[in-house]
């Protein structure tokens, strides 16, 4: 069993190495007709840029994106500065150098990677999946009898912020930086999943398709790990199945297929304000121009946020979304599960959490207000502030850096719910409902708590569950995503996630159950 595990690790690392090397490998050679197509398609009017590419790129072989990308970027920068100097603003190209490099790279890839997509997919994704499963599956036997198994998490450098965790951290952060800011280096990855993308949407893959496919793959493999680790706990098994289903079907398959059917790309479960660009002008226009389905999506999106989400939170707590449906939550609960103990339980973190998450919610609401104002009045500024630049700031700071780079990249350092706890505006909104008008609570079982602290340790949202449990109080907190792990790791059966009557949900207890005191007597003496 150990041997299978180790072999699996080696295979996984080979797959990972291939995946990591692919972005800088490969040959690119742009032929004239392809470039002419790009010029036509992108409506490029800059003769300087076209001439420069014709001279320096077309017909030449480039070894790897590292040599192609700077050539394109510098040609584009030089052309733009010349046009700006000459005040030829109609010729300025507003596509960034990186996006242009990605566009040209995608169309000009030749050589081994782009000609052997299936083989390269197998050598990267395939080996990664096989290796990871070989590493994970033997745990059915190695972990012994079913039951909660967290032995050694603080002794293993993968889970105690040791060197393996640091490497994972660097890898994840780099991956997100490429994805958001250097898409041209993802071009070779897109070749690997082109066949899958074409079979779904009919289009070749872009770098967001790579991300979506990888997201589903990672979640599926790590869900297998969850099934084994929590196989004694039916709640965890059902919940994991649910997040996996919603990610693969709703976030990945349905939007891709909608594109094939000439419909707008839309994830039906992604609720505003997490889906922060839902009311952006380009999206509204696309929806309004898409006929019946566009209108349906528009109404659905509004109803989802204003009615479905709060009503469901009233009945089931925000867990129905955050740990049963949401994609961000889904990744956190699968890939992120080994890191849940790193969430900070300090009072300081709680204060930071409240300022940050509600700040982001406010930011999202103000931004959307400006967006809608601009949309209906057709003015691009409010009080002299450009709506577009507020949107860009939000997309960069919150959408890319907070949710992506920090939210997932920092899993091994800050735990798996950094985004959900400190940043997600939807979580903040659901939190209000959960705290003030909901049937959900985590019930504390009388006086049974022994203060061992397992619940607090493994709470990914950094809630000091023990502080409530040892006082016999129910846990009613806006940040609780209802993952159920506190209840799973409790050795004495103290915690239970329940939906029950609102009355008595919050129960500051005067005296812990077990100590026989006449309560009336106690009150009268006060």
């Amino acid at each position, binding site marked *: 069993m150990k041997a299978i595990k180790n072999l699996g690790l080696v295979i996984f690392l080979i797959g990972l190495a291939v995946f990591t090397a692919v972005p800088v490998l490969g040959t690119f050679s742009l032929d004239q007709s392809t470039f002419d197509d790009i010029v036509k398609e992108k409506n490029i009017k800059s003769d300087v840029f076209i001439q420069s590419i014709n001279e320096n790129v077309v017909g030449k072989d480039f070894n790897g994106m590292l040599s192609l990308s700077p050539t394109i970027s510098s040609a584009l920068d030089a052309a733009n500065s010349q046009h700006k100097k000459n005040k030829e603003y109609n010729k300025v190209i507003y596509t960034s150098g990186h996006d242009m490099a990605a566009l040209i790279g995608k169309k000009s890839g030749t050589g081994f990677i782009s000609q052997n997509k299936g083989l390269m997919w197998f050598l990267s994704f395939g080996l990664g999946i096989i290796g990871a499963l070989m590493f994970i599956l033997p745990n059915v036997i190695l972990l012994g009898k079913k039951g909660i198994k967290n032995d050694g998490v603080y002794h293993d450098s993968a889970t105690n912020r040791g060197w393996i965790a640091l490497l994972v951290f660097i890898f994840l952060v780099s991956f997100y930086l490429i994805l958001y800011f250097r898409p041209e280096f993802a071009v070779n990855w897109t070749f690997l999943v082109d066949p899958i993308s074409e079979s779904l949407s009919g289009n070749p893959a872009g770098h967001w398709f790579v991300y979506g496919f990888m997201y589903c793959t990672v979640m599926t493999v790590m869900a297998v790990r969850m099934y084994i680790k929590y196989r*004694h706990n039916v709640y965890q098994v059902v919940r994991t199945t649910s997040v996996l289903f919603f990610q693969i079907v709703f976030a990945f398959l349905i939007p891709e297929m909608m594109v094939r059917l000439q419909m707008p790309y839309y994830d039906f479960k992604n609720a505003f304000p997490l889906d922060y660009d839902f009311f952006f002008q380009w999206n509204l226009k696309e929806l309004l121009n898409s006929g019946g389905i566009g209108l349906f999506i528009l109404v659905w999106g509004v109803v989802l946020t204003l009615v479905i989400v709060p009503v469901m939170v009233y009945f089931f707590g925000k867990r129905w979304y955050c740990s049963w449906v949401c994609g961000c939550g889904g990744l956190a609960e699968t890939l992120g599960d080994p890191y849940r103990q790193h969430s900070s339980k300090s009072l300081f973190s709680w204060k930071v959490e409240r300022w940050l998450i509600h700040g982001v919610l406010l930011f999202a609401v103000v931004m959307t207000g400006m967006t809608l104002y601009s949309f209906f009045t057709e003015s691009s500024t409010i009080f002299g502030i450009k709506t577009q630049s507020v949107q860009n700031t939000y997309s960069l700071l919150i959408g890319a850096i907070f949710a992506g780079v920090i939210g997932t990249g920092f899993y091994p350092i800050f735990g798996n719910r950094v985004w959900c706890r400190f940043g997600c505006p939807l979580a903040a909104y659901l939190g209000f409902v959960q705290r003030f008008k909901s049937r959900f609570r985590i019930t504390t079982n009388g006086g049974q708590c022994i203060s061992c602290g397992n619940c607090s340790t493994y709470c990914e949202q950094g809630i000091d569950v023990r502080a409530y449990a040892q006082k016999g109080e129910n846990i009613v907190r806006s940040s609780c995503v209802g993952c159920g792990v506190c209840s799973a790791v409790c050795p004495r059966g103290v915690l239970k996630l329940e939906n*029950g009557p609102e009355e008595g949900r919050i129960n500051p207890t005067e005296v812990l159950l077990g*100590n026989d005191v006449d309560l009336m007597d106690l009150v009268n003496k006060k």
Partner: protein
Amino acid sequence: MQGLYSKQDLDKIEANAPNKEVCNRAVIVGGGLIGIELAEMLRSRKIPVTFLVRENSFWNGVLPSGESEMINEHILEHHIDLKLETNLVEIIADENGRAKAITTDKGETIECNVVGLTAGVTPNIDFLKDSGIELGRGVKVNRFLETNIKDIYAIGDCAEQHEAIGNRRPIEAVWYTGRMMGEALSQTICGKPRQYSPGHWFNSAKFLDIEYQTYGWVFSERSKQEHESHFHWRHASEKICITASYHKDSKKFLGINTFGIRMRHEIFDRWLTEERDIDHVMQYLKDANFDPEFYSHYEEEIISKYNSVMQTNLSVQKKSWKRIFSKA
């Protein structure tokens, strides 16, 4: 290894038993809660463990036989070398004075690097001998937790009641009694004198992967009184069982042990206060279930066995939030 009380003791066991290379085998002597927890911790470091238990079944001075047998099986499932009816004769030291083996009264010699003695706790009160404070096995206190000397109190594992409260022992070495005594005593010290008056007995533990809860009194065959009868149900394949005790004449419910099923403290506390009979408890068992959502429920199975054993014709009542949250 003896007297695990402090951080330094933990450091010591970390030094002596960090892994199976340093510690090839550990022997634990004494079959109680601390013994099995120590075994679990050593096993978490993959250290082979031999577990010597004086009785012919694990903790059967406290647990009824069906439960005790189930725990025996579970201990073996965890690859712990359980030796029942076996006593320690001698710990053999090497030239550095460290344990290298032990001998048992079965004539066996077991090589080991660590020996854990977990035969139970006694109050460590020798330092009070000449203080004038009245001592027994522990520090003698009254219901206000006062010793014989004014303004000196004792609480927790060292406090010994002059007279035992209910079925409780005079010295209660249970985690929550210290907390409750502290709660009562702090009121007293703050000028609102309050007696220590524990309510219905409850307790819990975890035997490796099996959670155990108890509410009210369920005594083992060895210590139960003549009027106490038991109803026992065990799952066919899983390590799940319950034992409910009742008065054999009046059918008054006395207590319940549950293994692998979580129960609601408040509900059993209420049933004990209301002096319900065991039929009532069996019918309304769903109200008391505290397992996480989606878990399998066994109330039907339990009641059908109960009906066949007790010649009754009861049926399971649906869970009711109204009953659960009604304050008696």
